[in-house]
């Protein structure tokens, strides 16, 4: 894999002329270890995320295999719980978040006309922490007592008093992942504030850049709180403190408050960049400027602000005064206003556009529809009295998989199809990609839609066995799961095939795409925008201004 | 009394935060940062003296085992 990209980029470099300090990439493996180039680091991030996605996906296959039929089939319950826990942690911290940071690394400098990220050496460090943290997290599987089995939310006292020894490794893996995210976010902020082309105003920026800018603030505010939570867990486990132990005056519910104070902004960390991606793709294929650009920016900012004051809706049943329940319910439902603004803007952008449905557009449209389903089930869960029924059932599982799989993951796949030709200079196989899209989008609905029914009928989440009345829907869901899992084999093939054998493309891959990234060659040269773009160029490449 | 201390504290945080803002915004040449930091030290010392004074007047007493 890496050799191909290296060759490609070497080729580019011999063509381009550079002044003294601008040599091309180094040769060999050390290029990737030492690199300070935002494109290299973006590539590393995306491949790492893809690897983690496959590992986490394999765990999901285990889970669906066990749930294929009632009764205990393959694993003991302890191992099943380890699988659900690690699946969640790996997908959130190993796949979705690094994938977005990878996209940010590749695209933000290209989209704002910057020559690189603002702090390139630190950029390298934020990536290279990840493989170590990921390895530490996965190594818990092979430890005595097994991996953490308390769910990805690691509530106390399951994660303190009753957890296996490997939990301490999990804690430090989280510390490292958080450290990496914070450094990545600082870099994004410094890049956008300081490296933007001098003639590009904030409100000229493409929406992907805007949404990432806001996401970066969320990361800086939320990740340290998670670090604090796991630190308290560490001392409760090993040094006799009693933060989460009522016998010492603490409170296990306090863990939930601290965790969700991080956890809810985290939800938006995983979806705001997705909003940005979709807002880039839809105008390109609808051949119209994005409808309501500034309202999109304000909506993103208000979602981000609100995300810090709604964490209690995750804990309606954990013991909360009625006033708290009411407040958290109304605040939560308020978020649907800015989210609705976004969905309507995407639809209005498509309205009367000359639409065409290349693969990125298919994924983006699927995102809008399926994410909205996830949003609606979120509204249902946000209603405190109704949540008494839904809490801890498969309805919750269905809800967050609709927003994270058909939301966040779909947007990442859309982004990869949209920008892959720019990255490697070659076009993917459109026919195969469409086959893959329909395969994935049908199977993912077979996988997750029946889980709504299971949840409403009362099937609890995080269990390896269930009563007979849930058997049919579980079997359907598992079949969908295997089909969806298999679709990633095809996806891998399409991407590898594109990088190796794809037809070369020119700079403007999509004929109606606007944005500075399309004004450079495909594949993007190793160094771009050594001289920042002019105001004229920026205006030409920005669809929402100058009309 | 707690509120007065709180107000002092808000001013301290404000001057500290504005120093951070000036550090990010201005280059090294500007004196706004060092002025904000001077203000922050000044208010902090005032607050400490105020706590001292209120203790002496018996308005507040330290946390302790009753």
């Amino acid at each position: 894999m890496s050799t191909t990209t290296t060759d490609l980029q070497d080729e580019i470099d011999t063509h381009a002329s550079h002044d003294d300090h601008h040599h091309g990439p180094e040769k060999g493996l050390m290029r990737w270890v030492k690199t300070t180039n935002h494109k290299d680091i973006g590539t590393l991030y995306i491949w790492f995320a893809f690897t983690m996605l496959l590992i986490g996906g394999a765990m999901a296959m285990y889970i669906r295999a066990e749930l294929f039929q009632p009764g205990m089939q393959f694993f003991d319950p302890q191992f099943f719980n380890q699988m659900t826990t690690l699946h969640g942690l790996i997908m959130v911290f190993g796949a979705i978040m690094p994938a977005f940071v990878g996209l940010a690394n590749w695209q933000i400098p290209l989209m704002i006309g910057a020559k690189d990220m603002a702090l390139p050496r630190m950029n390298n460090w934020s990536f290279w922490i990840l493989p170590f943290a990921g390895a530490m997290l996965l190594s818990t599987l092979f430890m005595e007592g097994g991996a953490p089995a308390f769910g990805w939310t690691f509530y106390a006292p399951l994660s303190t008093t009753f957890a296996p020894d490997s939990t301490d490794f999990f804690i430090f893996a989280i510390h490292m992942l958080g450290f990496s995210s914070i450094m990545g976010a600082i870099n994004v902020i410094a890049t956008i504030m300081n490296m933007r082309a001098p003639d590009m105003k904030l409100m000229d920026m493409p929406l992907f850049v805007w949404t990432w800018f806001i996401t970066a603030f969320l990361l800086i505010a939320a990740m340290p709180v998670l670090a604090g939570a796991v630190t308290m867990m560490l001392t409760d486990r090993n040094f006799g403190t009693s933060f989460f132990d009522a016998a010492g005056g603490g409170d296990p519910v306090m863990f939930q408050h601290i965790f969700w104070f991080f956890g809810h902004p985290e939800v938006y960390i995983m979806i705001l960049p997705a909003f940005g991606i979709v807002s880039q793709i839809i105008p390109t294929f609808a051949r119209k400027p994005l409808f309501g650009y500034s309202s999109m920016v304000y909506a993103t900012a208000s979602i981000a602000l609100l995300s810090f004051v709604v964490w209690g809706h995750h804990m309606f049943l954990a013991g909360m005064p009625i006033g708290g329940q009411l407040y958290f319910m109304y605040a939560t439902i308020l978020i649907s206003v800015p989210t609705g603004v976004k969905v309507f803007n995407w639809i209005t952008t498509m309205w009367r556009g000359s639409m065409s449905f290349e693969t990125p557009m298919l994924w983006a449209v699927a995102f809008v529809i399926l994410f909205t389903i996830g949003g609606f089930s979120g509204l249902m869960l946000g209603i405190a009295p109704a949540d008494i029924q839904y809490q801890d059932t498969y309805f919750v599982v269905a809800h967050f998989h609709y927003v994270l799989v058909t939301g966040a993951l779909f947007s990442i796949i859309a982004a990869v199809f949209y920008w892959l030709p720019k990255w490697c200079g070659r076009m993917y196989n459109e026919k195969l990609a469409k086959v893959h899209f329909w395969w994935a989008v049908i199977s993912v609905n077979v996988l997750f839609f029946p889980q709504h029914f299971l949840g409403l009928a009362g099937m609890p989440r995080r269990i390896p066995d269930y009563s007979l009345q849930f058997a049919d829907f579980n079997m359907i869901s598992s079949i969908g799961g295997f089909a969806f899992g298999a679709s990633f084999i095809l996806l891998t093939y399409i991407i590898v095939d594109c990088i190796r054998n794809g037809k070369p493309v020119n700079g403007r891959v999509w004929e109606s795409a606007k944005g500075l990234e399309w004004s450079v060659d495909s594949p993007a040269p190793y160094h771009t925008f050594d001289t920042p773009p002019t105001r004229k160029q920026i205006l030409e490449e920005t669809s929402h201004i100058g009309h | 009394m707690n509120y007065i201390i709180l107000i002092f504290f808000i001013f301290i945080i404000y001057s500290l935060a504005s120093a951070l803002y000036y550090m990010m915004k201005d280059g090294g040449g500007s004196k706004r940062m060092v002025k904000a930091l001077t203000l922050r030290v000044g208010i902090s010392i005032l607050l400490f003296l105020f706590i001292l004074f209120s203790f002496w007047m018996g308005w507040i007493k330290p946390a302790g085992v009753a």
Partner: protein
Amino acid sequence: MQSRSDYFVPDGSYWPILGSIGMAALLGGFAASLHDSLVGTISMILGFGIIIFMLFGWIGQVINESETGTYNLQVDKSFRIGMGWFIFSEVMFFAAFFGALFYARQLSVPWLAGEGNNFWTGENLWPEFKSVWPLIKMPDTTNFTVPKGIIEAWEIPAINTLTLLTSGATLTYAHWSLMDENRSGLIGGLIATIILGVIFLGLQAFEYIEAYQHLDLKLTSGIYGSTFFMLTGFHGLHVTLGTIMLIVILMRAIRGHFKKDRHFGFEAVAWYWHFVDVVWLGLFIVVYWL
């Protein structure tokens, strides 16, 4: 010296990967040593060494690049933004622990004693338990150490507050001296700040020993001990870091680094010190007073 005009993008570097290896060795080793693994302890020490080596190497390279005019004003600005938002992340980290303190004081301790609609909680779990702060007698004392008392605000804490406040003043004096191109004032102010910082740390260590040996106030002393030691402990860690950074700045000042209008390293460390100072003031008020 003329600084280069374009934005400096460094060549590939080994420091980050070294940092990652060090971090993994340190934290992985720490986790293992918590479960009595000797290899873990060795790995932890090794990892710590690697990180120290990496920090000196990396920061040394940055200082060198800075002094040889590699950074233009735009790079300087990136560092400023980076430092600013890093500090913000630190604020949020402390916020988690302050949040835990307030939650325990205002909510969980009163609830355990039956406040609000928690009458039956109190009645069923620990009917004898009374809600007071500082919480000396935790609901169930079997697994915890009941302290004989707590650290009095008018002893070491007040002296320490005065020490840190004075150090803020001496640092500000150094800052003004730098702006007024008074090199000896800068160096003198820095030396005074460092000495005060070391005094603070010494007194803090003394206070901890006092708490452990005479008062039986330990990490295991229920939620009061937990919040007390975690808050003051993390603060102490930051003072330690700040002191080390001030020493680096002092060395640079002696070597003639920093100009009237180019001294970001000084500003960053100074702000960090003021931040740590204010956190202490907050601790002094909410932990020892209110």
